[in-house]
């Protein structure tokens, strides 16, 4: 049935071709459909976990919440460090022109300096779109009120509040309390940065640094669900922050203020502690600094100014200042010499005003030009006779001298709970060999014996050592923390560390030396510390000290000779009171000026005036 009609043939051919092509088309569409399903399988099954994570990180925003930093109080709950809210005006990141317009609008209500504007635009590239960028920090209450009244006109602006550290006593407690600041790279490596997400602020000095862990607390976080614009749609989970503990210091703010005032314009330091338990009641260092300067982020200029200021205010002289102890060292030597029977109370030396080691030409002067005549150990302490001690330490030799001073903690850090304590220096032949490459001369022993030469102590070391005399050898590590209170209200008392006591074979030796020290403050007996002044109502034992800064006579200070200030002697006064049941030990050091004894007298009188009153009322 071969059809020869060309139209018919064409039609059949077309039909066949159409049917073929239709099947090809269906098949290719099925293939494309399968490819799509394969793609979906790849995305939804093979890569499912990956995309689930991405979806989660899209919508989850974990915002750390800052714990409130612990407060610091003195022993009577007087605040030394608090937190106050500060307010920052921020602008939402947007186009530059828009931001310029907005700043102009804000200026109608709140002054924005050119400097602030400049800083704002410098920070702009570091922020993502729709993130608030700080424009003006530390808004005043008036500015804050103006903002809220006009808020409806200022779209895209925000007020962010933050807690800022404030120190009510400022420079009175500056070097002791220290300050907080932004975490630097070095610190970042030592801490768990997750705990600092919300407020990257850390203690940098003083108590703030020492007790960072107690003060900081634990950071919390909120898990928020956010939409594509960054708006919060709901809170998924909340882990509240744990606030820091409140620290109660051993400090008595009244004594601290007085100590700072007593120092006046002089450069120097005063430390007062309780010899029974090591509580530091006052530690004043001059010049000082106002730690509030650091709270809002100190400017580069201010910081450089503090670093380079005369007398180095950032330096806490109590534990970082190293001075020659001068004659304050004499009672310690006398204690060992009497106890080891090197001398007796009856041993006398004739003081002509000078001393010479046999076989040498060098003459060591007494501070008193004409000498003190015949002197025993009690008189030698009272008058601070140098010649007596020249003879004594020559007799003892450096080894016995070091053995006498070591148990009191000289040359070692006291272990106080404050950062960056210096160790001082108790020289020895082996030390000299190592550092100077020279042998020890008898002359070095002589100088060490009157607290000069290489010998260096910190005021705190000396205070701790004097406290040991006051308590007949008891040694407690001085400390500033009394207790800390956790946010739930439980109080943890600080346990002062006891060190092995100084043990003397003969208990009467303590009394002999202390009696001699009592005479130091008696004007009638011509004691060297007679500027101490009245001590009616309490007994006191003390010792003066003068440390040469430059080689000239040591009685220069009360002369009218014109010696440049920075070359004048440093003056010490160490004391404890009352003698029987000591309550306080005091060390005063004044750089390049006298009157250390007078200042110690002022402080102790104030202390006893206050405390005898307390005892009378209670």
């Amino acid at each position, binding site marked *: 049935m071969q059809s020869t009609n060309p139209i018919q043939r064409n039609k059949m051919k*077309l039909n066949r*071709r159409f049917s073929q092509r239709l099947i090809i088309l269906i098949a290719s569409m099925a293939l494309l459909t399968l490819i799509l399903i394969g793609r979906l399988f790849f995305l*939804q099954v093979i890569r499912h976990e990956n995309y689930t994570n991405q979806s989660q990180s899209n919508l989850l925003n974990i915002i750390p919440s800052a714990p409130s930093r612990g407060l610091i109080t003195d022993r009577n709950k007087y605040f030394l460090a608090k937190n106050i809210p500060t307010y920052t005006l921020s602008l939402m990141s947007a186009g530059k022109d828009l931001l310029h317009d907005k700043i102009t609008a804000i200026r109608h209500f709140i002054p924005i300096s050119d400097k602030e504007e400049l800083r704002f635009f410098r920070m702009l590239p570091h922020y993502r779109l729709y993130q608030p960028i700080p424009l003006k920090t530390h808004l005043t209450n008036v500015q804050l009120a103006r903002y809220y009244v006009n808020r409806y006109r200022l779209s895209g602006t925000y007020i962010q509040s933050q807690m800022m550290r404030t120190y009510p006593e400022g420079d009175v407690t500056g070097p002791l309390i220290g300050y907080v600041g932004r975490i630097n790279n070095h610190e970042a490596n030592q801490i768990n940065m997750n705990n600092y997400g919300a407020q990257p602020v850390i203690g940098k000095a003083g108590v703030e640094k020492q007790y960072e862990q107690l003060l900081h607390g634990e950071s919390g976080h909120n898990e928020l669900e956010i939409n594509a614009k960054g708006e919060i749609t709901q809170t998924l989970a909340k882990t509240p922050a744990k606030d820091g503990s409140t620290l109660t210091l051993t400090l008595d703010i009244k004594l601290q203020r007085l100590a700072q005032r007593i120092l006046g314009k002089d450069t120097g330091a005063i430390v007062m502690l309780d010899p029974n338990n090591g509580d530091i009641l006052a530690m004043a260092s001059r010049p000082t600094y106002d730690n509030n300067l650091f709270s809002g982020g100190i400017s580069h200029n201010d910081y450089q100014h503090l670093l380079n200021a005369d007398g180095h205010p950032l330096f806490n002289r109590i534990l970082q200042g190293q001075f020659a102890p001068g004659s304050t060292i004499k009672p310690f030597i006398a204690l060992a010499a009497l106890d080891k029977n090197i001398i007796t109370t009856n041993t006398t030396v004739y003081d002509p005003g000078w001393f010479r080691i046999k076989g040498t030409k060098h003459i060591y002067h007494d501070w008193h030009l004409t000498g003190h005549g015949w002197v025993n150990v009690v008189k030698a302490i009272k008058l601070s006779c140098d010649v007596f001690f020249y003879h004594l330490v020559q007799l003892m030799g450096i080894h016995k001298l070091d053995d006498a001073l070591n148990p009191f903690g000289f040359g070692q850090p006291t272990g106080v709970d404050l950062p960056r304590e210096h160790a001082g220096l108790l020289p020895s032949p082996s030390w000299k060999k190592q550092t100077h490459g020279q042998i020890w001369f008898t002359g070095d022993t002589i100088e060490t014996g009157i607290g000069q030469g290489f010998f260096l102590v910190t005021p705190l070391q000396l205070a701790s050592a004097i406290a040991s005399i006051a308590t007949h050898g008891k040694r407690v590590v001085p400390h500033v923390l009394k207790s800390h209170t956790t946010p739930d209200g439980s109080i943890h008392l600080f346990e002062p560390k006891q060190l092995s006591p100084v043990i003397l074979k003969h208990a009467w030796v303590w009394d002999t030396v202390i009696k001699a020290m009592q005479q130091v403050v008696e004007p009638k007996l011509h004691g060297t510390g007679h500027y101490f002044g009245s001590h009616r109502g309490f007994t006191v034992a003390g010792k003066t000290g003068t440390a040469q800064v430059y080689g000239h006579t040591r009685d220069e200070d009360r002369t009218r000779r014109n010696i440049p200030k920075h070359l004048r002697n440093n003056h010490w006064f160490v004391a404890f009171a009352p003698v029987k049941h000591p309550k306080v030990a005091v060390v005063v050091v004044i750089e390049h000026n006298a009157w250390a004894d007078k200042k110690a007298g002022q402080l102790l009188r104030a202390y006893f005036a206050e405390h005898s009153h307390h005892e009378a009322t209670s």
Partner: protein
Amino acid sequence: MKQSSSHSSFNRSFKKSHSRKSWWRHFLKRWHLDPLLSGLLLLLSAIGCVILYSASDMDKHMVMHQLAHIGLAWAVLIAIAQVPPQQLKQWAPLLYALGIILLLAVLFVGHVDNGARRWLNLGGFHLQPSELMKLFTPMMLAFHFDQIKRIPSARDNIIACILIAIPTVLTMKQPDLGTAIIIASSALWVFFLSGLSRRTLLFASGASIVAIPFSWHFLHSYQKARIMTFLNPETDPLGNGYHIIQSKIAIGSGGFLGKGWLHGTQSHLNFLPEHTTDFIFSVFSEEWGLIGSILLIALFFAIFYRCMVTAQHQKDHFSRLLCAALATSFLFAALVNMGMVTGLLPVVGVPLPFISYGGSVMLSQAASFAMIMSMRAHKRMW
């Protein structure tokens, strides 16, 4: 006793259902509607509304609007289904010419929206002529190949090419790359089915591969950016790549079973762009998972297949060409949309038929299914 009563009730219910079935069968037949295809399309529209409710973030207003679109579309469908294919064939050249005129009018007096000139404002009614051309171009091509009644010669093919090129280029100029692709492809299916020789096909595919680098120059900068983004979305995660990355995250995080209806985070928190229109499949896939997606794709394929079977049974060359081309076009648009949101294809702006929110596309799709139904219903008549 008991048994007989249950038996009688069974009988009664059978009769009742049978009578009701015959009633709507009769209705469909009277209005030339294909019952199976109508059912599948209604199912697809219903699914579309359910997805839209979630994608629009439970915006009832928007769903009501879409229901209105669907109602209007069915009215148009029923109306056009009454037109016999013969009539359609006769009108094809006229409609094509009208469409070209409207496209030209758009270029000069069109309504600008989103930087593109796509709409004609006809006194409150917005007409998108490129949507019409999705129908008129394959109609014209089918008409062309039907008229020559032979294996097309080179001249016939060149004329066909020109017929495709005019509306495609005009639509690209608007610019609307997505619609232009759909117009060109719908006509190409006619071309393919009408019997190009294997040699010509090979030559054409070779030529188009060569043409790709040249056509690059004709694209708008935003279209170029889209294609660059498609090739490597991660280079610009917050700019052009953002949409496709977020879409892949939505689909991928949906997993095998999905996050559940109304529980898609990517769409409800607005990470997904255009989630009621072009990216609606991402919303669906996030909430219904691989299972849901496969079922939806199967539904698309079933509709396509039903139409292809209809095409197979057509005696008239114009009818079968148009029927197959429109059906393929429908599935192709769906595949391009889904390929686009899954990152297989560049984002070109093709909506998902019957699912994406929008009236114009719904109407043109309804019109094409109306023609198919008309062909199926009228095939015995001629």
